[in-house]
């Protein structure tokens, strides 16, 4: 899933400062799963904005609504009658949501309420970890099913750098050295030879380096 974290409330309050009517828009997709952008969090953020307004002597009219997904025009359409009545929309979906809203409602002010972090998953309750860099050409089968592009701090493709220590990356004791994991798994499986082969430079044409990406599936295009 796409993992996000809430923006500091002070940052959001700066965005909506002086506005009278604000809509907080949640999303039932990934951000609900990572406890940052669902109906519950929309309610909390809406209350925070109301309270902050009251402290300044302003009664801010804060609406709350949560869409099935914000990365789909079909669901974005659902708020077509209410968006125009607000001064601004704070979307707490990932970075896709506020952009789909901005495109569909060109007259609306749309603010991001979360910081979109990465593609990953929960490794323990309350702890999420990155797994995929979205490079567009998956190569994890060469590395025991683990991705050095996303998970090695230097995206090394031919083995661990000299900074690997006690299974951790040189940049932080909180970051696993993925190459340590790749090597150990290969040894456990008796397949170390697989890692001795030279992995040539990767083509980044399918990654963000190739420009903003788009995918077309002809059979689905109406």
């Amino acid at each position: 899933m796409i993992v996000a974290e809430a923006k500091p409330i002070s940052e959001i309050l700066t965005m909506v400062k002086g506005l009278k009517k604000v809509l907080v828009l949640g999303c039932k997709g990934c951000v609900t799963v990572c406890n940052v952008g669902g109906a519950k969090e929309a309610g909390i953020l809406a209350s925070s904005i109301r309270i902050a307004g009251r402290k300044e002597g302003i009664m801010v009219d804060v609406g709350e609504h949560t869409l099935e997904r914000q990365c789909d025009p079909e669901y974005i359409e659902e708020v077509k009658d209410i968006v125009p009545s607000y001064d601004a929309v704070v979307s707490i979906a990932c970075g896709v949501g506020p952009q789909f809203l901005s495109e569909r409602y060109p007259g609306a002010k749309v603010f991001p309420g979360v910081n979109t972090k990465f593609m990953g998953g929960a490794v323990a309750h309350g702890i999420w970890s990155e797994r995929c860099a979205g490079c567009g050409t998956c190569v994890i089968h060469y590395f025991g099913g683990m991705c050095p592009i996303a998970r090695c701090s230097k995206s090394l493709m031919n083995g661990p750098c000299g900074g690997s220590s006690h299974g951790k990356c040189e940049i932080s004791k909180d970051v696993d050295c993925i190459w340590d994991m790749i090597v150990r798994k290969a040894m456990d499986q008796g397949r170390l030879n697989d890692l001795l082969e030279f992995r040539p430079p990767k083509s980044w044409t399918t990654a963000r380096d190739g420009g903003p990406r788009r995918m077309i599936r002809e059979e689905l295009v109406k």
Partner: protein
Amino acid sequence: MSDYKAGSNLEKVLKAGKFAFTGECGPPQGANITKLKEKAAHLKGCVDAVNITDNQTAVVRMSSWAASLTVLQEGVEPNFQMVCRDRNRLAAQSDVLGVYSHGIRNMLCLSGDHQKFGNHPEAKNVFDIDSIQLINVVKTMRDEGKFMNGQEIDVPPKLFIGAASNPFAEPYEFRVFRLAKKIAAGADFIQTQCIYNMVRFRDFMKRVVDMGLHEKCYILAGVTPMKSVGMAQYMAKQVPGMDVPDSLIKRLKGAPKGKAAAEGIKMAVEQIQEFKEMPGVAGVHLMAIEWEHRVREIAELAGMLPRPVV
């Protein structure tokens, strides 16, 4: 036709079977090259080539190619270092052409310290290619006269290709294989991380020799003399991938007051002498950090002078 791959002094010394001795020098954090020239003067005649570091520890310094040229003009052969952190494949290849056209003949290919450690931690890193891929790029440019895209090069750059190896980083079991990968990718010589744990290094070299890697590539053992007990403790605890045994720290602590640096030099000299006898070791790479003025003394004590002229 010359039998040399690049014809650098370092290559000639190694190929002649002489025990090589290389030094290291960091470019200035500014455009003032006075001190760089002084460092070069200290190293002149003491070593066969001098590594010119490339934004080492991710701290911005004068570009390694520019500092390499300064050193070359001072009559010292540079070993131009390049890290993958700061350059994509276009920049890497164009710098290879550039340095060769100005007379640089050695190059060391490195991944580079993560920018988190440096003075611009907010930077975006590159890592378009990794160090082993870079080795292969430089070899392909030299031996096949081709860029990465297969396009022919008008006058291919002929560089003597170096790489680094850290026998002490984890996972230990893989280190000798990573070295083998670097050699297979095209490394002509290897400079190791600073060695303090001689027992473990001897074991590493035994594996290197058993695999015959020393016959495919020249291996230079890394030495950094300890200046103080504090430095030893810092290296032991703070520097990732460094193996500093307690016995070494104890010996430094045991030195008479004010004599820790002298003891550090003595230890480095003993190491160099041991490396001269160690199977598979073709030379020593002395990283005397901000101690360039002590290199002659170390070289003399270790019997490394005069340097061979090949």
